[in-house]
């Protein structure tokens, strides 16, 4: 189809599809009225049963923990895919980047930016850790905290310490953190089996709601997810960054 024809065909079909959608959507209960039993039951029983103040966390990591395992491996697969695509490309085209080349290509950064950036790293890391470890008590958890932690690594880059980051090799660290976190999730699941219950059964002591050490496996799973997500996003960002930096020629502005 030519672009014009395609646009016309799409618009006609979209009008019909939109009408169908709206027709079906008006069959829903009015906005603001929650009909179903699922959420109500969980809101009633979850805190007592799981000692997790945050019921969303209890659903995510306990009642429907298998979904979250799947979700973590979706991230895992996507990061692997990005790594394979972009690393293969690098092998095809470029000479292996050596330390000198990386030094030369790193962007020049003013001292002020560098200081501000580095000064932010500490608080951002702390905030990320807080979000990861308090997922069962307050909004947040492994995923949100993991992304925050990954941005801390980015701050190190923005402050011009990319060379430092390279020495630590984000790929190796990222791969390791990501796979450890992912394997950790499955391992916690198997813990339930080892204890004679089912996969992903919450077999650790539950404690009291509101305490940092409560809700059994939920904070442990949050840690695993935090590790995986932080590693995964560091990898994602560094794979794209790596590409840009190694290829960029001196003097070019990105």
């Amino acid at each position, binding site marked *: *189809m030519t672009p014009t024809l*395609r646009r016309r*065909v799409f618009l006609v*079909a*979209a009008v*019909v*599809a939109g009408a*169908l*959608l709206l*027709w*079906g*959507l*008006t*069959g*829903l209960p009015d906005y603001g009225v*929650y*009909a*179903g*039993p*699922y959420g109500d*039951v*969980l809101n009633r029983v979850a805190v007592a049963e799981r000692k997790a103040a945050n019921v969303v966390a209890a659903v995510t990591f*306990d*009642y429907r*923990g*298998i*979904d979250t*395992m*799947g*979700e973590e*491996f*979706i991230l*895992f*697969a*996507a990061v*692997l*895919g990005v*790594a*394979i*695509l972009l690393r*293969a*490309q690098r092998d*095809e085209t470029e000479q292996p980047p050596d330390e000198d080349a990386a030094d030369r290509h790193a962007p020049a950064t003013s001292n002020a930016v560098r200081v501000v950036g580095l000064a932010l790293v500490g608080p951002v890391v702390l905030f990320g850790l807080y979000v990861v470890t308090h997922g069962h008590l307050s909004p947040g958890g492994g995923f949100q905290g993991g992304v925050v932690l990954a941005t801390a690594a980015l701050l190190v880059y923005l402050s011009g310490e990319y060379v430092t980051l390279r020495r630590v090799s984000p790929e190796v660290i990222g*791969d390791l953190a*990501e*796979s*450890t976190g*992912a*394997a950790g999730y*499955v*391992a916690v*699941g*198997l813990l*339930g089996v080892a204890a004679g*219950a*089912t*996969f*992903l*059964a*919450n077999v650790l002591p539950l404690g009291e709601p509101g305490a940092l050490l409560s809700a059994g496996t939920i904070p442990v799973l949050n840690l695993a997810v935090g590790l995986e997500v932080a590693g995964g996003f560091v990898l994602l960002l560094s794979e794209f960054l790596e590409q840009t930096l190694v290829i960029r020629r001196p003097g070019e502005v990105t």
Partner: protein
Amino acid sequence: MDALPVALPLLVAAILVGLAPVCPRRAADAATLATAAVVTLLCLALLVRSLDEPVVYWFGGWTPRDGIALGVAFAVDPVGAALATLAGVLATAALTFSWRIFEAVRTLHHGLMLVFLAGIVGFCLSGDLFSMFVFYELFSVAAYALAGYRTTDPGSVRGALNFAITNSVGAILLLGGIALLYGRTGALNLAQLGQSLATGPADRLVVVAFLLLMVGFFVKAAVVPFHFWLADAYALAPTVVGVLFAGVVSELGLYAVARVYWTVFSAPLAETGGLRGVMLLGAVTTALVGGVMCLLQHHLARMLAYATVSHVGLTLAGFALLGPAGAGGAVLYLVADGMIKGSLFISVGIIDHHLHDVDERRLAGRGRHLPWLAALMVAGALGLAGMPPFGTFLGKALMEEAAVETGLPWLIGLFVVVAALTSAALLRATGRVFLGPRGGAEAAATRSPDEAAVRHPHVHATQVVPAVGLLAGAVAVGLAPGLADAVQDAAGRFTDRPAYAAAVLRGAGDLARAGAHPPLHLVGPALLAALSALLGLGLALAALLPERLPPRLRGGVARAWGPVAATLRGLHNGSIGDSVTWLVVGMSTFGGLLVLVVR
């Protein structure tokens, strides 16, 4: 331990990737292959256990309270377990095939393959609609990456992009359907959803939710016109991946259509006789478009990709009869067909590996020294045609009987024609490559001049064994004693919504055991299969030796065939925008028809 077929491959994948820098390649290969084999056995064990009653496994021990599912369950019946086993078998075969030649392989690919397999298995076993979505995305994301990683081939990247974008749109619609159902019922468990909807009529919300879910699965199954992404993605993927793509991924879409229809929608939509017609319309279109496109291909893997589309249409026709007999035949057909296509994909992989090409025209006559490979391809083509003793024969016989019982005997004609089309394409290609004269002037020009000097790599036993093994598996499915009865029993339970709901929500295993099934009439279907194969052979010969045809006939065929071929080729242009546009067109058409028939 029923979570193990999913948990084990994921755990091994994570460990392999973590150890990638220090793990020797052979160890990674061995661990991956062993894991795939163990998953296959675990799924097989589940299949055997589920023959008596469904295996229901509640993660975290959250059994339902008062009919309300708090957690997520694997609800395993023979149909789901059979598909999971098929995926395991194909993965094992594909990894065996790649043992010697996949030199570019890295541990990361192994990780992706295992995640892919785990996603498929989870999708087949899950009894929860949202978990099905998660596993659907899990194997899809792995598949997008696997489809595009062969970075030396530009087409593979384009194919992967189209695959990923179109299928993501499908996933969005699927999730929209889930949200609609959740808003109405407050449930995600299939059995509970079915219970909840059974009390009401098929109102607008039910119809639109059904539409969204079906379109989401039709995209994966590659039902026309949701199929435009498929050929590039399947044909240009590496063999080890293509075996699974062609063998089981489209089948998963069909499985989900059937599973969700029978567990969730069969009660409110039961009164709508028109639904059968609408589904059959899609099935017939898919079967014919796929068959004709298959015949138009010269790229061998692309030919198999369109054979997949065409047979998706056939299988959908079996499900679209909306009865247990048709569903049983469809499931049997789907498993046998998946193994045959997997075997053919491996054969094409061997050709690619050995002769460095997969274009039928350029390959003409270059396979003369490989008669055993020709035999494998011919056997595969006959399997696609539904010849006994392949399992496809038995599956088709069941579907044909169901079609007659449903009062739609003309469907038999469709089966004959489609089987003839796809087998004709394969027989033509086999004849040209393995028996034909070495290519004419045009082919010689495109071939490298020093081709004679190129050393053909050795064909390893590890490449041949899986191709033979898969064909043997397809035969075993056709010959296993008592299998037809077992399939009909399983299909009876697969289509029995109240029994499924009772087993999942109340753990009640009191299944009405189906009585003895009347013996199948096999002579008629065998004659029809022979007719298909003969038609296919005739078409193949006509394509190979056009000069033997009477000139008038040749001219007539060219005049009639040319415009059809040109139009179809033009539509299948690999454009991402077109693919998504057709998706929306298909959705509004299917939706409009649904609105008309559901009254």
